[in-house]
């Protein structure tokens, strides 16, 4: 199953891509902070900043923890913030289960670091207006979250 082509090259005024290295916990979190700073520069409302930062962070951490390598792209238009996270990881075998709060496949080491509460995907869903996840076991994951700007 492939993601439908992203519409609106015309709508997106600004596009920036960030590479994410799987298992690189040292750099983890930098992409979401960079995204937040970009959105601050755009003068977006505080609520949009907060939600975008949460979405970007949770998605970024999922890639770092599970995903092999990946790319995060930020698409920005006056009407919408879109975060796309594409990775070459193991994929999510049961998406419905993964979307449940508390369900986690985190390893012991990850939990020791404070991750793995099972809230990542539910948090992303809670903070975005539209969410599309394209994934299959062994096929990597592409996550697209959109937040409307009022």
């Amino acid at each position, binding site marked *: 199953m492939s993601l439908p082509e992203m519409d609106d090259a015309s709508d997106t*005024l*600004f596009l*920036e891509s960030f590479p994410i290295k799987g298992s690189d916990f040292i750099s983890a*979190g930098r992409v*979401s*902070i960079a995204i*937040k700073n*970009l959105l*601050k*520069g*755009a*003068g*977006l409302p*505080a609520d949009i900043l907060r939600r975008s*930062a*949460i979405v970007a*962070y949770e998605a970024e951490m999922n890639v770092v923890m599970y995903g092999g390598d990946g790319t995060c792209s930020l698409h*920005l*238009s*006056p009407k919408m913030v879109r975060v796309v996270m594409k990775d070459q990881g193991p994929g999510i075998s049961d998406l419905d289960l993964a979307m449940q709060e508390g369900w986690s496949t985190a390893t012991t080491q990850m939990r020791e670091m*404070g991750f793995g509460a099972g809230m990542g995907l539910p948090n992303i869903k809670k903070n975005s207006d539209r969410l599309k996840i394209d994934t299959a076991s062994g096929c990597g994951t592409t996550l697209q979250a959109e937040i409307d*700007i009022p």
Partner: protein
Amino acid sequence: MNPENNPEKTRVMALKIDPELCNGCVVCLKACPAKAIRVRRGVAQILPELCVDCGICYQVCPQGAIEVCTAKLEEINRFRYPVAVPASALFSQFGFNTSPNQVLLALKQIGFKEVVDTSWLCEMVGVAMEEYLLAHPELKPGISPICPAVVKLITKRFPSLMTNLIPVLPPRTLASKGLKQLLAKRYGWDPAEVGIFFIGPCPAYLDVLHDPICVATSYLDEVLCIGEVYGPILKALRNLKEEEKIQKSSGVGLSWASLGGQAEQMKVENTMAAAGFKDVVTILEMLEAGRLGDMRFLEAHICSGGCLSGPLTVENPFRAESVVRKLVREHGLKSEVDRGKVRQSIAEGVFDWEKSLEPHPVRPWASQPAKAIAKMKAIQDLAERLPRSECGLCGCPDCQTFAEDVIMGLAKDSDCVALDRQRHLKTKQREGKEMTVKELAEKLGLAVAAGTGGLDRRVTGGYISDLLSDVMAHAPAGALWVTLQVHQNVAAVAVLKEVAAVCLVGGRKPLPETAAKADEENIPILLSPDDAYTLAGKLYAAGLGG
């Protein structure tokens, strides 16, 4: 980051760059962690809105071109009763054998009529902050308001964190608030003749004097830096009369000069101390993203080693740290502060801020998101064309900042040497491309006397000689042959050697037979009023190498 000035208030800069001494190098430009410096017209300038008063520029300038604008010691003579409020960092400056009490007495000896043991107030403020944290268990973390540079950083770059700041007056304010009235009562002094001087380790206090953080008008009159009083105190220490005991603080207050002194004092779980601009920004970003977890107290300093490492101190910061460690051991960690009294004062509002903090957020790229996003795209497009050598020659600290400044109208893209060089190289390449005789003649304003049929021949170089045998031996094909010979043999030789064209110098004209031959063979004859030397110079300049 948009460096546009916030029009509400212009801050006072304690550090100024002397344009006579500044040589426009890139050292401070690159060193500034806030990217607040630009070099324009060969002189460095600090952008006040971005400056965070860390003083790193002052420390690194190889020309000594940055001057400190805090007060001179003579200013104490403006007041009949000058009073000193020294930052506790001052006690770390005079080595292992000088007690804080001696430093306080020395201050009196150099002219201050009264001196406050600010470390004692540090201990009290510490208790007040702790009480606030206990009364507000939901505050995670409470941020210490002691470092004024950090407070200003928060109001500009992290206004959402302003509510984390613990609204307790810092020691310098607590010390100076009501001090004039107190001294009037105690000694009968006229408050109008009392001058309160803060003695501080860093440039931040000058701005705070004019734009105080938590009170409407500062209770301080002037700011001196530790460097200013160091020499006089050293002198005074040599013949000190130790008659009074001014110092009241224990090691608890004295440790505030070090990084972590406040955090040590807070008896709450999970306290943190961070220092240095970049590291403090990282911590604040983590906090803003909700990732600081269960932290209850954050002590943050712009100066990377806490107050005793401030740029306006004298002692080496690691040695100063040693001194404080010794002082803390000597004076112990048992504070004499009466918690009951502090609680009562809190209830009476003694520690309360007198005004609420105002945010001064650094501006987005434009007032409307659509325009701001368009600017971001323009910045991105320009940044992609830049060489990313981060050389600083444009006067901006790095290529990204240069792109931002150009799009915001603060710099021209021709300021970039590399971009300019690319343009220059392209022009050179165009010029180096082989010219036709016609192009060359037009370029140098040479008249065509004959042989117009050969004007599209390509000219590959030049040759000057008036000896036909020499031309026969050495002139390269395709060259422009420069000569003063006008007779018919010139045309013959020109044909034989397959020169591109002949140019007669000194205003000479070909003989009719020569012109006729040239027409027949389509070898242009050009005319120049110049002598051969001058013409050769012009040909070289036009790109026609030898």
